[in-house]
């Protein structure tokens, strides 16, 4: 995705690289704070074990520290770091004799993961309003906005995200939690915008469904 002939080192990158080379610990800590979770999320798409994923990320940071003097700025710093992680994750997978999984980011078209349970719609070949809602979205109630600001709904969201496939969780984390733009996500993960949207769509749909269930149950109390 990154054009190798067009250096993507931003002014920001230059400051960070210079800071790292000068041994500026605040710059280093800042970098770790910024990328630790995204890197961990990416590692989890390669290795199933949380412990191994954390080790892969640590190995990545060590490689960054060791390699920073050789960084030439042909790609952005972020792309460079994420590629190191991908390399570390794949090497780790090989060393542990796990076959490299099919890319977690491949989203096969027609892979059945509808946004909403199809039974909630009228049959597509029926005579009455085919494909229209039979069981419409539940009303989240007049206090929904207030609830959505609270701790409980945060936990519902966090739990729902924990059940997502790693690639879906990662894309939603980067876009909606970390606030990355679509281009940045595609560049860092080296996936197409369309692919990114499919993963985002599936992730968000699942989380919405969990929130809906929460509100339905809250209304029963």
């Amino acid at each position, binding site marked *: 995705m990154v054009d190798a002939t067009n250096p993507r080192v931003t002014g920001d990158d230059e400051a960070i690289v210079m800071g790292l*080379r*000068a*041994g500026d*610990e605040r710059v*280093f*800590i800042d970098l*770790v*704070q910024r990328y*630790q*979770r995204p890197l961990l999320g990416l590692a989890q798409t390669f290795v199933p074990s949380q412990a191994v994923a*954390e080790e892969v990320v*640590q190995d990545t*940071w*060590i490689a960054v*520290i*060791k390699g920073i*003097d050789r960084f030439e700025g042909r790609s952005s710093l972020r792309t460079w770091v994420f590629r190191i992680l991908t390399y570390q994750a794949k090497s780790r997978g090989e060393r542990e004799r796990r076959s490299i999984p099919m890319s977690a980011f491949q989203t096969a078209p027609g892979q059945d993961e*509808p*946004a*909403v349970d*199809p039974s909630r*719609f009228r049959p*597509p070949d029926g005579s009455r*309003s*085919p*494909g*229209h*809602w039979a069981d*419409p*979205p539940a*009303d*989240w109630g007049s206090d*929904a*906005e207030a609830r*959505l*600001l609270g701790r409980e*709904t*945060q936990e519902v*969201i*966090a739990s729902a*995200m924990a059940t997502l496939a790693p690639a879906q969780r990662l894309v*939603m984390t980067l876009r*909606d*939690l970390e*606030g990355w733009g*679509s281009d940045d996500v595609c560049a860092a993960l080296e996936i197409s*915008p369309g692919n990114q*949207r499919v993963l*985002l*769509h599936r992730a*968000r*749909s699942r*989380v*919405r469904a969990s*929130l*809906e269930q929460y509100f339905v149950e809250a209304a029963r109390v």
Partner: protein
Amino acid sequence: MTAASDDLACIELVELVTDYLEDAVSEFDRERIERHLSGCDSCTAYVEQMRQTIAAAGRLTPGDVPPSIVDPLLAIFRASRRTES
């Protein structure tokens, strides 16, 4: 109500919501979607719920990376810069 051939069914719209919110639909599809929404309270509610989901997710505060992770890396960083000078 007879559906015109280019009218969206609700089951189709829920699959287009992300593309719609990302501004990644064609002008033609955007019009179909908005025409459908103007006549469908259920889908309007669904899109609103998706917006609320995204906004709420954005408020999750991940918290700082714990010292147990940062400190060992910092030690390695310090050591490496000492040898470089």
